[in-house]
């Protein structure tokens, strides 16, 4: 089930979502060894940042809500990590964020010099006061930040989008025009809120948080569908993907690769291999292949 992504051959279409485990080289490698073809680091920011106080991540059963708040050592404080990643045996996406176009550029330029296989700009994180989101909901801002980052990176650039955009196809077009090489969608949905009725207060310390896992899958499928119609760029589709059938569904909406995050909670660390195997099995049973089903849902409606 090998597949090519922006010129890079991958063992299968499965990607580790940013912010899930990706905190050290060793754990990224372990995820890769568990059947994941392409792993994403936790989003890297311009300064050291602790993130929000706990509670930050709550499992609601049908998915989770989180407001981790973009913790990051800061791009200049990761020398050991970069060193360890230098002679890695697996393909890597470095995810970055900033609070302004200038910060995005600064972080991107530095991170690019560390030679990840791809850079993903997180223009979609809802969990902080000022970072990211604005760049993901307004096409003018999107264009500005993507083209600024594109100028300073030496590796292919992926833009990660938020489902909060009123017209996500339009945002994807802005990314394409600005020189992005691929789109990753979606980041968490919402934001939502959970109130504890005994203490009468929001459970998350940040009060609001992004939703992920099975409950957001229909939103993710719709977003990927819209993006596929809007642009030619390859898409990493994610949001609630938990089984092989979920993956097939989002591929039919138009995804080239499939990201997995929250499902680590529901099916364990070997979820990557399980989903890869289930995709393979489905394809065999239906006597078809990835290239045939990608975007299939568009053809049926003409």
């Amino acid at each position, binding site marked *: 089930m090998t597949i090519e992504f922006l010129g890079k051959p991958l063992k299968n279409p499965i990607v580790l979502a940013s912010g899930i485990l990706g905190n050290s080289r060793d*754990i990224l490698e*372990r995820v890769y060894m568990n059947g994941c073809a392409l792993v994403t680091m936790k989003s890297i920011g311009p300064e050291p940042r602790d993130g929000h106080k*706990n509670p930050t991540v709550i499992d609601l059963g049908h998915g989770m809500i989180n407001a981790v708040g973009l913790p990051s050592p800061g791009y200049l404080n990761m020398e050991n990590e970069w060193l360890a990643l230098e002679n890695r045996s697996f393909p890597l996406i470095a995810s970055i964020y900033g609070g302004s176009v200038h910060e995005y550029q600064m972080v991107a330029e530095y991170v690019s010099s560390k030679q990840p296989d791809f850079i993903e700009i997180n223009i979609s994180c809802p969990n902080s006061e000022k970072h990211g989101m604005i760049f993901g909901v307004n096409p003018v801002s999107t264009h500005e930040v993507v083209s600024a980052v594109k100028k300073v990176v030496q590796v292919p650039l992926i833009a990660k989008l938020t489902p909060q955009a009123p017209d996500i196809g339009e945002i994807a077009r802005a990314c394409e025009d600005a020189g992005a090489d691929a789109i990753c969608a979606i980041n968490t949905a919402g934001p939502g809120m959970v109130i504890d009725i005994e203490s009468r207060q929001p459970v998350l310390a940040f009060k609001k948080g992004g939703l992920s896992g099975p409950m957001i899958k229909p939103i993710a499928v719709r977003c990927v569908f819209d993006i596929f119609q809007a642009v030619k760029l390859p898409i990493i589709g994610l949001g609630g993907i938990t089984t092989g059938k979920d993956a097939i569904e989002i591929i039919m909406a138009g995804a080239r690769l499939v990201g997995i995050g929250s499902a680590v909670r529901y099916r364990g660390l070997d979820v990557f291999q399980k989903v890869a195997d289930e995709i393979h099995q489905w394809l065999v049973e239906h006597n078809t292949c990835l290239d045939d089903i990608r975007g299939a849902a568009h053809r049926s409606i003409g």
Partner: protein
Amino acid sequence: MENITDQRHIMLRVEEKRRESPAFATLFFDYCLAFKPGQFIMVWIPGMDEKPYTISYHSKTRFAITIEAKGLFSRKAVSLDKGALVGIRGPFGNGFDIYPDSSAAVIAGGCGMAPLATLVEKLGKNTVFIHGARSKDYILYPDRFDIQRQFCTDDGSFGYKGFVTDLLKQQIESGRQFDHVYACGPEIMMAAVFDLCEEHHIPCQVSLERYMRCGFGVCGACVCGSQIVCKDGPVFNSTALRDMVDFNKKALLKSGKEVDLSLYFSWRCQ
């Protein structure tokens, strides 16, 4: 697929508070918690923060956590009184592997006594039980167990003056055979116990502590090398420890920055 239901906090009221010593308090809750020694829960004090604590007492109708007053959160936790509302999530983690008919040694250091307490209650009377602390005030549950216990303190204010590893070494050198050694305490102490066990080919299990957020193996806050402390651990056996390059060396701060363990703990105890 694992059948996972809503994991929001279960809200409980403190039923009883016990001041164990100036440094420790135990909070009891009347609730039936499915649990295995060594597992932990995330404890939420509304409006404050949420942190991991091990279960220190357990019966069909009751459980407790024992807290050492250190930083902001734990000082608040020990100040809670009967009736205070807290939320719990869990239990999480793997817990200790227990072998009922074997010969075991349990080595507790300071607050590391808490996760070992329910384990000790499940082990045989012939268990060798060694308990060390900074000083007398830091000896948890001095009168709690049926099993005989050897005490030691850094300052000699209670029991032998010296380290738990001195006492364990004496036991081993006197010819005592152990099938398993369990340890919990400061990581440097657990590393010393592990080294001693390796030297004498005794399988060992230790319980690690790292900053945690989700508690269920998703967010990556607690990662130690390739191991996920909240999910693969917090209890790790000799096989896992041998490959764990960060054991007794590195930990991630809240920001995810990797630092030396000494910095991690000195920073935290401010």
